[in-house]
């Protein structure tokens, strides 16, 4: 008993240290954001004075941080939703059925994932213009672009997770009279939830932090998502480091909140799963 206690304590201690290491750079971001101008480059861990106003005046309308947050939420949320609706059926079918062109489909999907928007930006811009999308809100274009470029990962992740769930479970449900779709919803999805949530978080974060496409397809500051807003803090002759880092910390919060809500779903007590 005591051995287990000590073991748990050691494990906890190691985990805490690792957790701290992962948080440290972001703590440094907050500290740097709070440095007054005179002490920005001082050689110390903590400045002598703290400018709390850096965080409070971040919300002024001239900085577009609020609108940037809203826009980013729309884009990331929209893209995640689209990916969910498109990837889940595709992954389910690919995992369960051996159809003609299955291998090719998976490889096509993978191949398109290899190329990132950074490389394809000119063509994306051309599409954007040719489809007349500059007359509509760029949010829609960005939702589609982010969804398309993260589709492959989600399909592959879901394909792997669903594939590792035995089909017998669905068969059993269908024997009882449920349709295939019903089995999907009642049996497979709940069990594959960790994989589904992982794919969703992956997509959300990717869309949330996407920069180059957002920069190219938006034309005025009211349309900017947060990543582009933050880039404006880097000027021609000077960088507004404090506001840049402050905005960056703020930008992380919605993702962390989202994660807090669904963290249970990824790793919360579905199976015992721990080596004793």
């Amino acid at each position, binding site marked *: 008993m005591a051995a287990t206690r000590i073991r748990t304590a050691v494990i906890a201690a190691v985990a805490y240290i*690792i957790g701290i290491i992962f948080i440290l750079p972001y703590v440094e971001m907050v500290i740097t954001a709070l440095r007054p101008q005179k002490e920005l480059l001082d050689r110390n861990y903590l400045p002598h004075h703290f400018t709390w106003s850096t965080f409070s005046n971040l919300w002024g309308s001239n900085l577009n941080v609020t609108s940037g947050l809203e826009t980013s939420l729309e884009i990331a949320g929209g893209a995640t939703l689209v990916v969910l609706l498109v990837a889940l059926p595709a992954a389910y079918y690919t995992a*369960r059925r051996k159809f003609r062109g299955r291998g090719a489909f998976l490889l096509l999907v993978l191949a398109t994932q290899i190329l990132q928007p950074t490389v394809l930006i000119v063509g994306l811009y051309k599409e954007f213009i040719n489809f007349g999308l500059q007359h509509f809100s760029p949010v829609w274009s960005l939702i589609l672009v982010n969804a398309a470029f993260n589709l492959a990962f989600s399909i592959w992740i879901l394909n792997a997770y669903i594939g590792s769930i035995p089909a017998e479970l669905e068969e059993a449900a269908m024997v009882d009279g449920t349709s295939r779709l019903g089995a999907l919803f009642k049996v497979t999805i709940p069990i594959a939830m960790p994989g589904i949530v992982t794919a969703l978080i992956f997509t959300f974060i990717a869309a949330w932090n996407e920069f180059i496409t957002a920069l190219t397809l938006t034309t005025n500051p009211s349309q900017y998502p947060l990543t582009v807003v933050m880039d404006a803090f880097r000027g021609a002759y000077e960088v507004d480091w404090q506001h840049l880092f402050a905005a960056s910390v703020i930008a992380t919060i919605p993702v962390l909140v989202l994660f807090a809500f669904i963290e249970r779903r990824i790793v919360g007590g579905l199976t015992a799963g721990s080596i004793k």
Partner: protein
Amino acid sequence: MSNIVTAGPATAGRTQDQPPGRRQRKYPRVRAILAPLPWIGPAIVLIGLVVIWPIVVMFQTSFQNITADGINIGSAGWRNFSGVLNNANLPGILLRTVIWVAVVVGATMLISLGLAQLFNQRFPGRTVVRWALIAPWAASVMMTALIFRWMLDPNNGAINILLHQLGIVHGFNTNQSAWLANPDSAMAWMIVVAVFVSVPFTTYVLLAGLQTIPGELYEAARVDGASLWETYRRITLPLLRPAFFIGLVINLMNVFNSFPIIWEMTQGGPGYETSTSTIFMYNLKAINVGQSAAMSIVNFAIVLVIVFAFLRMNRRTLQEAR
């Protein structure tokens, strides 16, 4: 025990693909093609419309002579490709890319295996620590790279302050403290940052994989008296294989394509001494857009080869995952 893994969808799929004689008489092949469409159709449409066209444009661009200002002054034939492949910097860049990918992905996978195991244990405050691990994943990689560059500032960076206190760094504003100015130390630090931002996602992928391993297996192993390491090797690792494989492939692609870290920390410089092939492709855009597109295609080909090689090697895993 093996039934759970190898039986299942593979066999189920096969039986269902051969329809009972009565049901499908007309155009069985057409039906076979159309059947998956409602399921995979939307994905094909989305990818086709959004991704394929820019890829086509990129291919076209690679055969054009486009100046650094974006002006197309005519066809370049294969000159862009020969220009890129004959570039004196290329061999060094390719070698560096191999090292970059191998070290970052290797370290990430190993560390993530350990962390997933650790965070799968029960201990007080587990939720908080799991949450803390998300920070590098949630923050934008560009900002993480920036704060690391800030912490490595030769004059006042927090890392230098710490290392100075530990006696490792002997003075500020010295060449030693200018980690990012020297290509070798810059690469080392950038590898650290790359691992730092890749580990959270990978850990969670593996963690989710661990969650799907039924507890009864561990019970059975314990009853059989297996040691910790044996249990890990014989039960955990094999069952973790699909998740590990996914994490590996995703990391391979991501790390190869990795851009913000190197760009923000050294811009690939001095010269091209810290450039990977992705950075080089981006740098070429400033010199000759056509060559940049050609380099993108070269990169594309490289990643395809790597990923295909992995798929081949792990065909068994794919089949099991089905």
